[in-house]
């Protein structure tokens, strides 16, 4: 079973990296970009028995820093 964890900065937390990407896009002539927020995607290959609670635990204990980041878990059914 695979799961994806999306980690994003909480609203209101300054994202210097997103800002730099935004500036670079404008530099390339892309107009109409209102804002850019950068985050992380972590793919986990897990034993089938892994529960949602365990994945959440992984996020809270290591994958995300909940002081500044939110996380969202997406389970992918094995093909």
């Amino acid at each position: 079973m695979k799961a994806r964890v999306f980690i994003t900065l909480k609203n209101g937390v300054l994202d210097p990296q997103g800002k730099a990407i935004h500036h670079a896009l404008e530099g390339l002539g892309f107009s109409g970009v209102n804002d850019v927020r950068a985050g992380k995607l972590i793919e986990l290959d897990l034993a089938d028995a892994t529960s949602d609670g365990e994945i959440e635990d992984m996020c809270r204990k290591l994958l995300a820093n909940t002081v500044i980041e939110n996380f969202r878990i997406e389970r992918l059914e094995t093909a």
Partner: protein
Amino acid sequence: MKSAVIVFPGSNCDRDLAVALQLTTGRKPDMVWHKETTLPDGIEFIGVPGGFSYGDYLRSGAMAARSPVMRAVKDSAARGIPVIGICNGFQVLTEAGMLPGALMRNAALKFVCRGVPLRVENSQSLFTCQYEAGEEISFPVAHHDGNYQADEETLDRLEGEGRVAFRYLDEVNGSARRIAGILNDAGNVLGLMPHPERAFEPAHGCTDGRRLFEGLLETVSA
């Protein structure tokens, strides 16, 4: 004073810190590898050094904060043993939940490496007792992720409880309220981005950091 310096893969200020501690205390600190689960008996002070533990993977300090030795560091801090986290060590202590807030990428995205003027905001702590309140000093900084952030409530609490130990005089990295270093609520854990151990000997060009270690020795030995 019997001290320990924690060493992670990627630490690179561990020896600078060891030299400062040896010159201050006359005794070599124990260098403790991150895989250890206990600290040597009778440790009276713990230093978490600067560097780039685990290559700053995931987040600066994130991996190191979960390494086996950190449980022993936390237990010691809970028993009142003084702990200092410098630069990457500060990041490790916030990631370990021993200090509030987080250290994010510098607002200007640049690695900042220079001496910076600081104000000593709290001269009552066991780390800062040899400074005058409001005194202006200089320590070098060398970091990419030194932008201290916490929610307004936490920042107000830190200010109100005198837990902001050092503040930048100028804009350095985007830190909220120009915070450079903070104390935990018990006052025995200090985290700061600037490097007092690199402002120690005359050859460093500045010796303002020496009093931090001397004050610590005085308090611990008292």
